[in-house]
């Protein structure tokens, strides 16, 4: 292990150690150092905002420069919106008109688009459910059956059709589903511990240091 890597590993062990200890210990120095480390993380993350802005900018400027067919007008519009929002947002506290314009953009454009996007989820859920419930195996049959019961439990008409729907669906959710979920959560919790240890020792490819070459 070279010196650079050893220093990185030592720093990681120290930082993560303090954060973990902070959860368990009630000791002023440890709690203070941990809160500072968390603050540094936020500050360091803020530096990466420039990377995001540069990436977004260069992608859309590239489309405009190349006049990519069917793309460049949208890229131009995106950049215009970004510049406009940035300008109104930055000057909102100084110029009242900017504040009003920023609120207008948020309330009448962004919120509506977000709501519309959320609405699309319903259509995707339907198409996914249709595909999931088509099949001729015992697994799909169980999936379909529990799906029907749970949907009809939540639908107002379910109880009107048969009063047993909520009872059966509640049992499905409370017994088999809960048992599976608890096993699932236990595995995830322990897996998280193992991932943290691998990342800490530089054995995880996605962790700091890459884990490349062990």
């Amino acid at each position: 292990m070279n010196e650079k890597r050893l220093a990185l590993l030592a720093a990681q062990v120290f930082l993560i150690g303090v954060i973990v200890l902070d959860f368990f210990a009630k000791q002023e120095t440890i709690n203070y150092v941990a809160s500072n480390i968390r603050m540094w993380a936020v500050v360091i993350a803020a530096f990466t905002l420039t990377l995001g802005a540069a990436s977004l900018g260069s992608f859309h400027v590239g489309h405009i420069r190349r006049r990519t067919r069917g793309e460049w007008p949208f890229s131009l519009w995106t950049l215009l919106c970004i510049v406009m929002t940035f300008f109104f947002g930055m000057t909102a506290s100084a110029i009242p008109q900017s504040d009003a314009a920023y609120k207008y953009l948020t309330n009448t454009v962004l919120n509506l688009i977000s709501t519309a996007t959320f609405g699309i989820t319903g259509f995707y859920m339907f198409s996914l459910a249709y595909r999931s419930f088509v099949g001729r195996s015992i697994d799909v049959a169980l999936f379909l059956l529990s799906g029907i019961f749970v949907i009809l439990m939540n639908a107002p008409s379910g109880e009107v059709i048969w009063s047993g729907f909520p009872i059966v669906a509640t049992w499905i959710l409370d017994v088999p589903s809960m048992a599976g979920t608890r096993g699932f959560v236990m595995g995830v919790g322990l897996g998280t511990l193992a991932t943290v240890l691998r990342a800490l020792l530089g054995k995880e490819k996605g962790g700091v240091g890459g884990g490349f070459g062990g």
Partner: protein
Amino acid sequence: MIPVGRQAGFVLVLSMLIVIYWAMNRARKGKAPFFRKLAAIDALEECVRRAVEMGKPVHVSPGIANLRDTSSAEMVTGIGVVGYTARLAAKYGIQIIPTCSWTDTQAQLEECIRLSYLQEGKGDQYKLGTVRYAPQSSYNLMVVGIAETEKPAANIMIGTHMQSGLFGMESMRRQGAINIAGTIRNILSALFAGGCDYFLMGEEVLAAGAYISDDPSAKGSIRGLDMLKLFCSALILVGAILASVGSDILMRILKY
């Protein structure tokens, strides 16, 4: 220093870390554990080869979280999968489209992809700015846009996904892409199970990092994990028996 109420937890977590470390060391000394096949990870190479044949790119995303919250373990694994896919892409000479919705993740992804290209001896082909970023509010639509305009041959979404997973999976499927996904969220796991060609569920996502690693000690951590699962299951069983006979001694010990 450690108050009552946290002491048992501290001892347990510390013991668990020691067990995992011991298993990693044991594997490093040559006793690597048996690993069952993870079809979703094995299919990554198949996806990249398909992309080569079709002359199309591959979309890959570690998810919509950052590296500073409770999803960071899942994100780290997701970034590892992106790195592995980037290595395959460099090997076969295809384009990958990595996406994310946080800038700190973007920086980590860029570095991971750069290292992957270097590892394949194709560092000159890596371009800074490969990763596409969109804030969380517009990330879903960016993925749909990529599906509609660039028509990737495969969509790999292993990491922290919520609504984005559904958007990515369905829009990419419409374009005929293979979907490989994985999450530790049990609600989304049901959606992925129904809609993906291959998927990783729960702890399989977290084990993926060890699976793709060449390092035996990383694989060893999974053996440690299995031992701990057995221990926890035994603890649950003992707790259930004790509770059935009216004893709360285990609860009192764990609350200490």
